């Protein structure tokens, strides 16, 4: 079980959180023309790197804030966590 540092609450065990996928994904702006490829990339395609991955986590059993985590997918090492508004 990972130990994740919520930027609001501090270090907590993984079972308080839920995983929210790739943090680098940007939703195309509402109301803006979007090509099929752009939209497909957004909805379906994700990188699956071995190594560093910036991702979203949600502190569901805590402060209910979404935040960013930089994690090594192979070793689970967590390098940094940050608020959504901050650079990771």
């Amino acid at each position, binding site marked *: 079980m990972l130990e994740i540092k919520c930027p609001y609450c501090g270090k907590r065990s993984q079972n308080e959180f*839920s995983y929210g996928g790739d943090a680098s994904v940007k939703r195309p702006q*509402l109301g803006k023309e979007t090509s099929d490829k752009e939209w497909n990339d957004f*909805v379906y395609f994700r990188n699956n790197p071995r190594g560093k991955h910036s991702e979203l986590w*949600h502190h569901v059993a805590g402060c209910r804030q979404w935040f960013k985590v930089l994690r090594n997918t192979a070793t689970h090492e967590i390098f940094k966590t940050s608020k959504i508004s901050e650079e990771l």
Partner: protein
Amino acid sequence: MPQNLRLDKVGYINRDKKISFKFNGKKYFGYEGDTLASALLANGIHLIGRSFKYHRPRGFTGAGVDEPNAHVQLYSGAKTEPNVIATTVELVEGLVATSQNCWPSVSFDFGAINNLLNKFFPAGFYYKTFMWPKNFWYKIYEPIIRKAAGLGVAPLKPDPDRYEHKFEYCDVLIVGSGPSGLAGALAAAKNGARVILAEDKPRFGGSLLTDEVTIGNKKGKDWVDETISQLKSMPNVIVKNRSQVFGYYDHNMMVMSERTKDHVENSTEFTPRQKLWYIRAKEVIVSTGSIERPLVFGNNDRPGIMLASAAKEYMKVYGVLVGKKPIIFTNNDSAYDTAIEFKKNGIDPLVVDIRTNSESSVVQEAKNLNINIKFSHGIVNSKGYLRVNSATVGKLNDDRSGYESLENISCDCICVSGNWTPTVHLSSQSGNKLKFDEKINAFIPSKSRQNESTIGSANGSFTLKKSLEDGFSKGYELSNKITAKNIKGTTPTSNERNYAQHDKFWCMPLPKNKYYKRCVDFQNDVYVSDIELAVREGFRSIEHVKRYTTLGMATDQGKTSNLNGLQLVSNIENKIVPEVGHTTFRPPYTPVTIGAIVGREVGKHYRPTRKSPMHEWHEQNNAVFVDAGLWVRPRYYKQENETLLEAAKREATNVRKNVGVCDVTSLGKIDIKGPDCAEFLNRIYTNAWMKLPVGKARYGVMLREDGIVFDDGTTTRISENHFHMTTTTAQAVNVLAHLEYYLQVVWPELSVNVLSTTEQWAGAALAGPNSRNLLNKLFPEIDVSNEAIPFMGYKEANLFGVPARIFRISFSGELAYEINVESGYGIFMWEKIIELGKEMNIEPYGTEALSTLRIEMGHVAGSEIDGRVISSDLSLEGMLSKKKDFIGKRSLNREAFINPNREKIVGVVPLDKKSMIPEGSHLVSDNKASLPNPKLGHISASCWSVEYNNPFSLAILKDGKNKIGEKLYAVSPLKNKSIEVEIVSSHYVDPKGERVRS
């Protein structure tokens, strides 16, 4: 019966307290402080079970968790526990143990015929033989194999014991209380760190319990006792015995099981049997010691043949002689400790040593004691059926390929030592890549991936001096990273025997024309010949050899066999061991009782139960409940001998005719506040929200980004910047997370707050033609007319002093209202409704009637919104705004979603107007077509329409709207039903929706 194998003064058992127990139906006794194994050995019993595959007689091999053979079944009935390692069971009064895997008895075992047929059971035998014919596997082969090759018998009744979970945090966790662990704990504790010291055995000290050493001029055991009491007196230290750290998980999460009950004589039923500790440690010191390896020779698995260190432990800890005519067979010096111990207790051992000589002090000590040593010799084979009675000892020729001479020597036990394997399981689990140490011929940890440090003999340091030094320095170094107190003690002086280099030779060759079975993995019955066969058949990767032969795959995880297996493969392939590599170590290190993993999360504690504030009323009024996620909801209110269907019909009919009340507290409710609420809803829902007036509700559908319908519900504008959203019971949690995601991650610029208020409001739905009259009685002070509270209207009012919210919304399709009050007033509201509704023939209705009402109205719910449908499939395309963008909209022009032949929602009526169509039935055009019969759609929900008094179902049907009027078949192979049906509109009752607006 006198125990003439029990020594008078040696050991740490309490000779003042006799303990009686039963083994295989016979009564024996031992002493307080014994294990089941030591007590049986004191009674001269070596034969304890039968081997897994060939049912060969087996005895004790070890004295701790490494034991591969001595598995027993404890007690009987609900309390019974299979596959317990006898060497780890503490003796308590009344203990009952039986042998496993033998019938009718351990000394006469019918299954031993497998041993005579063993030519037919080589490695991979099951894979090769039982594959064909295919369907024989489940019916014939598997049950027979299971019966023949089993371990113990699992209990059939629920476990009567309690198990607890505990969470703990510490700076330094030390696993193992041998010399290095104790030193590490002491150093870290003195330097101010929060320390947990865990020892798997009842007694602390590890090798110090049995080794002839001194530390700081004290006997090893005395130093242990003093150190433990010192640690126990420190407030920053937790000291735990009977506690096995069995798993090393991510981010230094360690899991430990503590045995808290079985050894206690007068425990209560509330004493937990075991505690599972989840320990988050900043630093972990693995000081788990090492396990002696067996030497491999002909019939080396006979009862009476055990590890030399185990024989020593039985003598020194339990005062038990494992035999009176021992042969010590070794390739190293450590076994001489055992020989000397026998000699000191008046027994003459014979040492058979593979090496040509050894010059160490311990060998010199043995020589001085006139112990008979045969250098350059090895044991070739053992004899005796249920217990070893002699050994064939051979003088090895110069290249050790065979023997110069053979002789038969009688004995009653053989104590073997093939040198020591560091216990690296936890280190490896932590992600530490192991490296091969040529000097000790075994793997040791190298670089840690986590905050893990392995020291002592687990790290391949077999001298006391080095273990103590490493312990004190690591304990200081790691604790100082955390406490920075710089309190550094000094390592005490120590004194120990000195040991020479071992000989790598470990597997005795077969004499000419002899084909003795030489066992490598005792628990899984894997022999030298099996591994040779696997390599001959082309299995190269050690992981494949492992799976093909099952080497190391038993519950002991190959603690005594893995390395010998690796050495054998590397010998055959002419490689060195590190080239062959090792298999993966996985938790748990030792078997863990399922009950301990589950803890208190059993029965009702398995998950939370959510009840509405009106729950007790429902109970008192004969509600039959149904689980809806975590919620428990009334399914129907049973009257006399009603069936579910009869009750649902009665309740639904009363709604259509009079008025009914339904507890809708479980619906998800989300409070939404802020100046950008309307804009936010406009983006989340598919329809328009900007112009919803205050005091009005609107039905909304939300999609996922991929265009699939996510959830639906009504949302009401309470005031300009305040909305009240409802969700389905099932999706309430997910919808909240969805809203939070968009607000926090995607549109942080929107000024909106969301908060779950599901449990803050109690909800009651009034439905039926009399509901307005009832509302009038409940709220006499306000105007309840159609004009004052129109369909989708909202009003706040006063329910006899209690603030209430009135929503005119309808799930049943009838004239209906939903009343919400603060949860604490829920029962007050409910009882008022029942009381005042009496004259209008009010009846409560449950989820079954609720389903009936919504199905015949064609309202969709979770069974239609199943994660596979888009709005138009549910005839909700009218809800898709063309004027604005919303979540998921861009996906809707995907090719598959604009296909006109997509499945659509329809109604289905059986032609006979009698047969209920099972939910999940498939719709096909020909019910007799050969399989696979093309599926046109499926039945999502079924009810008995109270409006038309015949069954009615909703279905999702390919090109459904164009099939209305057609006849199809609804087939359910599961229920063995095939029903001819007609496709009709999904809006079976009141298709124009006049009633809700009346």
